[in-house]
């Protein structure tokens, strides 16, 4: 009679078991609370499939007179994301200098800067967009501000972390030669962190391409708004073409920024 030899430690196995049970219980509780039922999905599956196959497929091209307008709305979305990220990055750079205890001339205030950034960041761009639309009215400018706020907050955090990661030794040595704070920033921090900053900037562009489409749908203009107007007009087949166009746009941007980031970090 041989006992089976376990492959992992006993307590680890117990941990996994507990996790599994907790996950199942949570799923059950949540399904009950939200009245979600897997069965409805299966029962209504036909209607769902019908909707997809009848209304969406095959994708249809809009009237040829509309095509240039749609393409230019794609450009608006791209421009919105790029310009919002750029402005946000410049602001974030200056603010992040005060968000790191090791760099800031006022180390005691660094916590508050980071806290403020965290607070701004935890409100999604979409919520900002709604707040701003209700106070300032809809338009590309407001979408721009909404994107700016979130990517600013995100980049402040990312830039602070980049600066903390880079060794503070060179900042200390410039302090020792008697350099001023702006001199230390431009001669030590900026050269050492530039590639890190650019990489975060490109990552933020990637995120904002998606976000600007969504912000556009609720009133920020661009391809999001175009898509929304076709959906509201029940022209689902044309909407599908636009969705595919958006997908292509996002994939292309992802590829380009991904390549650039790899180049930069080399």
């Amino acid at each position, binding site marked *: 009679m041989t006992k089976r030899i376990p492959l992992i430690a006993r307590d680890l196995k117990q941990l996994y078991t507990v996790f599994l049970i907790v996950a199942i219980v949570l799923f059950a509780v949540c399904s009950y609370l939200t009245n979600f039922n897997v069965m409805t999905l299966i029962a209504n599956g036909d209607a769902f499939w019908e909707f997809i196959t009848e209304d969406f497929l095959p994708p249809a091209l809009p009237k040829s007179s509309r095509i240039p307008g749609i393409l230019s709305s794609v450009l608006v979305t791209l421009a919105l994301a790029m310009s919002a990220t750029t402005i946000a990055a410049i602001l974030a750079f200056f603010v992040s200098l005060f968000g790191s205890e090791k760099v800031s001339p006022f180390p005691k205030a660094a916590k508050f800067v980071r806290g403020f950034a965290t607070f701004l960041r935890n409100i999604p761009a979409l919520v900002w967009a709604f707040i701003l639309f209700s106070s300032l009215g809809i338009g590309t400018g407001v979408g721009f501000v909404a994107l700016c706020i979130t990517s600013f907050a995100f980049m402040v955090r990312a830039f602070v972390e980049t600066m903390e990661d880079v060794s503070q*030794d060179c900042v200390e040595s410039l302090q*020792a030669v008697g350099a001023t704070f702006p001199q230390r920033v431009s*001669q030590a921090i900026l050269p050492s962190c530039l590639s890190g900053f650019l990489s975060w900037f490109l990552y933020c562009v990637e995120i904002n391409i998606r976000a600007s489409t969504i912000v556009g749908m609720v009133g920020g203009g661009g391809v999001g708004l175009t898509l929304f107007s076709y959906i509201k007009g029940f022209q689902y087949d044309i909407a599908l073409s636009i969705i595919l166009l958006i997908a292509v746009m996002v994939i292309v941007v992802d590829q380009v920024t991904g390549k650039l980031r790899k180049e930069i970090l080399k």
Partner: protein
Amino acid sequence: MEPILKFDRVSKHYPNGVHALKEVSLEVTEGEFISVIGPSGSGKSTLLRAINRLIPISGGTVWLDGQTVSNQHGKGLREQRRKVGMIFQNYNLVYSLSVLQNVLHGRLGYMNGFQGVFGLYREKDKREALDLLKELGLEQFSYNRASDLSGGQKQRVGIARAIMQNPKLLLCDEPIASLDPSSAKTIMELLRDMTQKRNIACIVNLHQLDVALKYSTRIIGLSKGEIVFDGTPAQLNDEMIEKIYGTSRENLMIGGNDDDKADTADCA
């Protein structure tokens, strides 16, 4: 002669309660080459950083070149700091910049904000930097990124940057701790020769007793934040060494003692 540097009962308490310097008093005059020795944690780095206030002190007074450092701020502090060159164990270069740019950083303390921020160094300074690199045998690396150099070469760039400051005093915090023996020898000789030639006082933190004995004109022994020895290398006898390190000279030599080997084997 007026001392370049004077410590008057300087103390340092770190916020975590460590008492790193206890009423330390000392004077340094022109042309001295001083080694500071002592066990790890005895306060050597703290002593050095108290001189140019990279670490603020908690009690006593530091005089540099006839002026107090401890109460200086802003411009006054920067003008004091530029009189003191500093060399670090980890070289502390800006690795993404060229060797020449790193050397020119030594001039930042003399430039106004705008020029310094945009790196608009004077032609005269650039020529001096190139000459200095030549003197240190690094001229062919002037336009390489600082990250491309070897350890010994990086430390020579560190020396060049400090000398560019035109300092009255040079502080070196374990300048050879990360180097192989032959680079270490080059660096120590460069430090001695360059400071002698320019009449710069030099304070070096060292872990290597033999190096301290060979190069210094004066040795300061620190133990638990207090100066327990201050004299010439010749005066540093075995008894004094035991007082500084709390162990006999033989035990300080790696592999010098059979018991030691047994100890390390036990630890491993």
